[in-house]
């Protein structure tokens, strides 16, 4: 039996496993298929990396987003694994061909579900020995509506084609119903899958909400908070334009340095912002929701939502970026009356209207022309009628609305916010939680923000500034030359 602790120390430099990690790896080494629910920042990458080191086997990782995959590849390379590749639609033809030709050189192969359904890719993968199949963000299998990825449903078949390798399904948040659904859709046997579920609760993150009168008041409060909070922070927005505007406002009106960070920026620009945030040149990142970052910054002290996310699951994931060093951190949700309409519109606009669906069923050739019609294409291919499809989409839209209502209820709740959030995940409040560091229900947080900051967030470091070097100094710094 391999000594996991020795590998952990030697390869990763950690003395201890995070909660659940050891249990999951042991189950895998015991050849048990695992469905793991681990909070964001719970060390998901380490699970399959350590398994690969211990067994010298190849791992295929299914991941839904190109940006997430590239992040994971960077992270693995950072951790010292060089034999990593991501098969994505962003590759051009010759690059994909070259990569496929040399695929046996890679120990970690990332691929989108669409890529795995590609016959050429699938054939190539079947020629390789696969030690572990990892399904990341496994809740996507169960998710419906416009974000639904039909190719996730083919993963059961993909697994079969790969001769049913050992499988690890991972997600940050999933209710029991979602977990059952994931296993069913993977065409696996519920009784044969080991479920390891870690608590969703992050005890070191203080929860608070501010209801503002209108947008100017919200902007003002954001400025005040950013100015007062010590350390690094992330502010989430639901649009690129808002992220950019408020980043400018923070730079103009506060003593902090902010930078926007979103999918509209190209790779090099995003990389530079990431590095600035890592180095502490930039204090605040203004990011669009659901957009991954390729870095693990442990000392994020605050996460502020300028726009509420569409559901509580996303909210938990996003605030999970705070306090990964286990030191106190704070999550603030800012809301104003118009916010919910913004989210409602996002939901409505995400669904094709009934006339469009009827039109597309009569002109199916146009289905293939637009990525946005992927969902309709799925129903069309399964020979459903237009009316059935409309009904089904109505149903999912309804589910989305209900999820949003839950998010709004969180804002309106007059009791303990943690208790409310955890109840969504069928998780009871643990006994160790007490009122002294929980949420703004027990604490007069809003009257004492400065004190709170001083007591919990201020770690005595000087606020960093953008280094104002001229190019000659920067060159010297880059190449460790002392003139």
């Amino acid at each position, binding site marked *: 039996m391999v000594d996991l602790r020795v590998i952990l120390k030697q390869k990763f430099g950690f003395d201890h496993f995070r909660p659940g990690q050891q249990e999951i790896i042991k189950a895998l080494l015991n050849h048990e298929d695992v469905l793991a629910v681990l909070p964001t920042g719970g060390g998901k990458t380490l699970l399959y990396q350590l398994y690969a080191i211990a067994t010298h086997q190849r791992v295929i990782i299914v991941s839904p987003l190109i940006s997430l995959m590239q992040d994971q590849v960077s992270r693995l*390379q*950072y951790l010292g694994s060089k034999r990593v590749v991501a098969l994505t639609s962003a590759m051009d033809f010759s690059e994909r061909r070259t990569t496929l030709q040399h695929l046996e050189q890679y120990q970690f192969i990332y691929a989108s579900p669409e890529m795995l359904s590609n016959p050429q890719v699938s054939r190539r993968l079947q020629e390789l020995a696969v030690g572990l199949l990892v399904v990341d963000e496994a809740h996507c299998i169960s998710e419906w509506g416009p974000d639904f990825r039909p190719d996730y449903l083919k993963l059961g078949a993909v697994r079969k084609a790969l001769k049913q390798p050992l499988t690890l399904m991972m997600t940050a948040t999933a209710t029991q119903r979602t977990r059952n659904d994931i296993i069913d859709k993977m065409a696996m046997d519920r009784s044969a899958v080991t479920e390891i579920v870690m608590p969703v609760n992050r005890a070191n993150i203080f929860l608070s909400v501010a209801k503002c009168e209108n947008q100017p008041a919200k902007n003002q409060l954001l400025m005040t908070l950013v100015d007062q909070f010590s350390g690094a922070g992330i502010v989430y927005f639901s649009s690129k334009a808002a992220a950019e505007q408020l980043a400018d406002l923070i730079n103009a009106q506060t003593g902090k340095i902010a930078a926007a960070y979103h999918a509209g920026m190209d790779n090099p*620009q995003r990389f530079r912002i990431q590095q600035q945030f890592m180095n502490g040149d930039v204090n605040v990142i203004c990011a669009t929701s659901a957009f991954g970052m390729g870095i693990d910054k442990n000392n994020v002290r605050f996460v502020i939502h300028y726009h509420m996310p569409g559901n509580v699951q996303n909210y938990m994931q996003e605030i999970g970026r705070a306090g990964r060093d286990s030191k106190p951190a704070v999550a603030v949700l800012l809301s104003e009356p118009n916010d919910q309409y913004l989210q409602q519109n996002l939901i409505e606009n995400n669904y094709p209207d009934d006339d469009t669906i009827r039109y597309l069923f009569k002109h199916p050739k146009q289905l293939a022309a637009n990525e946005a019609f992927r969902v309709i294409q799925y129903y069309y291919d399964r020979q459903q009628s237009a009316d059935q499809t409309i009904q089904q989409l109505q149903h999912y839209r309804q589910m989305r609305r209900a999820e949003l209502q839950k998010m709004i209820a969180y804002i309106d709740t007059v009791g303990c916010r943690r208790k409310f959030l955890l109840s969504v995940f069928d998780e009871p409040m643990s006994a160790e939680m007490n009122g002294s560091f929980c949420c703004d229900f027990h604490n007069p947080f809003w009257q004492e923000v400065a004190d709170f900051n001083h007591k919990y967030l201020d770690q005595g470091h000087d606020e960093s500034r953008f280094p104002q070097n*001229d*190019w000659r100094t920067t*060159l010297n710094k880059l*190449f460790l030359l002392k003139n």
Partner: protein
Amino acid sequence: MELEPFLLIFTSSSAWRRPKAIKNILIGRRTVSNLYWALQYNMLDFFGALHGIDLPDSIPSVAHMRRSGVLQVDDNQMVRRTKQGDAKRAFLLSEVPDMNDLKWASRFEVGSFMTRFTFLVQVVSEYSYGNAHYYPQTVSFIDRQIVKRFFLANKSTELPKAVYQLLNDFLGGLRNDNFAEIMVSNFSGHRVAGRTDQQMANQLGQPIGQIQLINLLLSAQLLAFLVKSASKQVTPLLQGLSKPVISASALTTFQLFLKDPTLSYQQIASRRHIKLTTVYEHLLEAAIVLPVADVPFTRLLAPPTEQQLAAIAPDQVGNWAYQSLSKRLPGISFFDFRLFQIKRARVSAATGKEGGQNG
């Protein structure tokens, strides 16, 4: 990247031009039509200089430039620079490096070059600090392999100094210190994050489009600097970056045409297993892009046909429309007509009569 600086530079104050054509020329979509307009607009040297770069649609850019008074727009969506536009263009050109260096971006994939070079800077920077534990930039498989191979082949304590020296020589030779600042902002390395174009725009108080243009021109200059440098050591980094002047297929057709004067176009088409219209396209491409001395214009365009066309040609041969001609000379093919225009543009440009339309 913003389109407006390019529209400002490549429009004319004396002739109407198509903004869409200007964009297509810069992107380098290799059609005879785009190449023809590149010839007419004096932009052949810059064909494909922005290949692979995301450019916005030309319509909103033109609308904005019309509103700010730098462009006139006619009913056919053709544009012409105003006096105010001329002044703005002159100012822009004084603020950026030599525009002629954009031709390097036409001959080489400058974007891939910069990806490789900035990645190399990061790798060498971390190496100089003895750090093997860092987040590498996201680059394609091929670029990664090339940089990795280069690094492994040259890994020594001298390498950081050599890269430093190269950059110091290059940046020290720039006429404006701000150019050096903008160039260095592209580099990330050990505890050095670099700056985004937007951050540089804010810092220097310049429009972001101008920063992007400066960056592109400097990247092209750095590439030229390496190509011209005597050091053979850097050539592996440039592997696969050069772009052909003419497409391989057009060149094959043209060479067959040169080699055997007895072949008809139809015969060339069947030998090459291509359509007759494709033969015409290939020969037109060759007539536009190859050196004038290499193009047998008299063989391509029979002198009697040329004389017929010359007799009725307007002053502005470049904008002469085929429809208006075919009514007067029904026997003339589009192929002959285009060749006539190409010959006029190229032979007269070569003798210096009609050049410099970009002034």
